[in-house]
């Protein structure tokens, strides 16, 4: 479990998907706060990068007013029913990753910690069943192997 000490000297963002943790598959909830205790969570390091990646992947490009380039085409293709098999999903994901990479890199600077900067993404596997797609991706920062600092809760 991470503590406040792990956050010293780091900049933080707020958690948009509650429920992340080490190991296994976890169901995340899209929320800035937790209903059970009324608290929110902050993140830093590679987790912050991961959240940025997920937001980018799940945001339809053009859906945010005044941020027209934010997001990618993956969810648009999913919504329009273009996915018929794993190959379709992989193709769509490949197309989307080009935009995601461009967007993430465009908002980074050399002064940012390497573990918060986009390095690469590897598609480990895609599970496709009717009505459901599971993507298993490995996101690597420019720092390579890093220590994961888990979210900690804060009052909001």
């Amino acid at each position, binding site marked *: 479990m991470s503590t406040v000490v792990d*956050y010293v000297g*780091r*900049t*933080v*963002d*707020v*958690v*948009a998907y509650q429920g992340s943790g080490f190991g296994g598959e976890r169901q995340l909830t899209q929320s*800035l706060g937790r209903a059970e205790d009324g608290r929110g969570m902050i993140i*830093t390091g590679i987790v*912050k990068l991961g*959240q*940025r990646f997920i*937001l980018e992947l799940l945001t339809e490009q053009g859906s*945010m*007013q*005044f*941020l*027209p380039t*934010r997001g990618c085409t993956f969810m648009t293709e999913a919504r329009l029913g273009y996915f018929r098999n794993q190959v379709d999903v992989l193709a769509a994901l490949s197309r989307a990753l080009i935009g995601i990479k461009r967007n993430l890199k465009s*908002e*980074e*600077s050399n002064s*940012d910690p390497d573990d918060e900067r986009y390095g690469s993404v590897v598609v480990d596997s895609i599970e496709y069943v009717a009505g459901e797609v599971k993507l298993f991706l490995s996101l690597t920062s420019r720092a390579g192997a890093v220590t994961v600092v888990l979210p900690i809760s804060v009052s909001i």
Partner: protein
Amino acid sequence: MSIAITDFNDLTPLQVAQEQAVLSTMMVESNPVLDFKRGVLHDYLALYGGMQGAKNVEEMARLQRSQSLNAVVADPTLADNDTVDNIASNFLVERDAGTKASGEVTIVIDSLVSVTVANAATFEGSGQQFVTEHSVTARTSSALLASDTDVVLVARDDDTYGFNVPVVAVVEGIASRLTAGTQVVPSTAFTHYLSSFAAEDFIGGIDEETNEELIQQFQFGISAKALSGRIHMSASLREQDLFTDLIADSIIGFGDPEMIRDQHTIWPSSLGGRVDWYVRTQDIPRTAIHTKTATLIEKTSDGFGVWQISFTRDEAPGFYDVTRIALPSSVVAGGYEITEDTRSLDMTELDNDGFLPDVETIAEGAYSRFQAAVIKFKDTDTETDSLTINVSTADYSASVRAMTNIADAQDYASARSVRNTAGDALVRAPVPCSLSISFTIELEPGQTTPDTAAIAIDLAYLVNRIDFTGRLPASALSDVVHNHLEGNAATTAIDMLGQIRKPDGTFTLLHSVELLEVPDEPENMVTSRTVAFILDPNDVAISITTADIAEV
């Protein structure tokens, strides 16, 4: 444009990005731990903060601009009406509210029976609704009149009967005007009804003053209201209740080549002390119908004859022309040929202290309240075999076109407490240049036909609001028309025809497809400073064609 922003789409991405950046920077400076460069804080929280910030900044900018006279003058659409009204009040100027057109409708029934039109009865004509403001009962004879709102049925020459009902438009604005003869249909039919139409031109329909027009009034608000300098004179007249909606005026005085009246001396020079005040009280002159008793003055070989009617200076002060003469019962649109229009001067004393402007010739007094006229016409319906020249008379209906309130303006300018102590001011209606305009609208295949009636109204509004410039470019018309067109629709073959009735009674025709320009004839009192363009929407002819565009 209102000051408050109620839709974020009114903001530009740059405005939002700037405020988002400002907010992000301030947040980081306040709390360096927060990552406002990207991520949820930046993309979601700071974004909405930036949108709100941009909204505030833009609203403040609008408010600042709307409180600046310079900014309002530069772009009056910036400011909302309330704000401009506040500025206007500093110049002692108020916005003219829109008014509703009013006039009389002639109702034709099939027999001589009493008919009542109820209060608030609705009529519709030219897409506009009109209502009665009180009930009107048409009686079969004058002996049966029971109230001030009762009228007597008039027999028409097609065995029908008619009576007039005053109505007022439901909606204010220039679109509520009707021209005499326009069909006006009751919403609810009543017994014996046959037809109904506008008995006269409906007047009074005025749109609410726009910010641009209101700002033009600022100079009059702060000026001294006195018959001295031109701005002062204009301001003084506009301050009078009858002339708050004055369209334009032009003042000819000492040193102007159009000024003839100050040369009534034995010296070949101008001595000053005279002012010709051309006042446009309406955008379109009103056509009023007068019932006149004519005298037969000549029998013609075809069995008919030439008749004569006269207009005193008080019957139609400053009128332009008689547009139609017919028997009162006539149901046809046309009238008799006017064979002679002779103007004269009536310089007898008025009901003031005896003061009269110095007017010597008919041309000098043309279109002023001192003008009188004798009109001769040939009646081709009334046989004259049994009639006696200079004795036999008959009633006729004469439609007279005139600017309204010319006599009232003269009364004001001649009042002892108002007039300049060093001279006189002769109020005249502008020398009329009556226009007809035609053009073609070329649509792309598949385009819907634009509203030609609305185009004609907008064109008339433009032309009739042109100040005394003497110039009407076709491009100005094209600009108005294009406001109604979509895509690549275009205007072609714009043709402008104007007819000037000079003060001496002669006519000059103007024709151009590019620029209609008033001739410079100061010796005839015809220049850009005396002539006003007049365009009735009914005199706009629009053809619609579809362009034959080959596929590429």
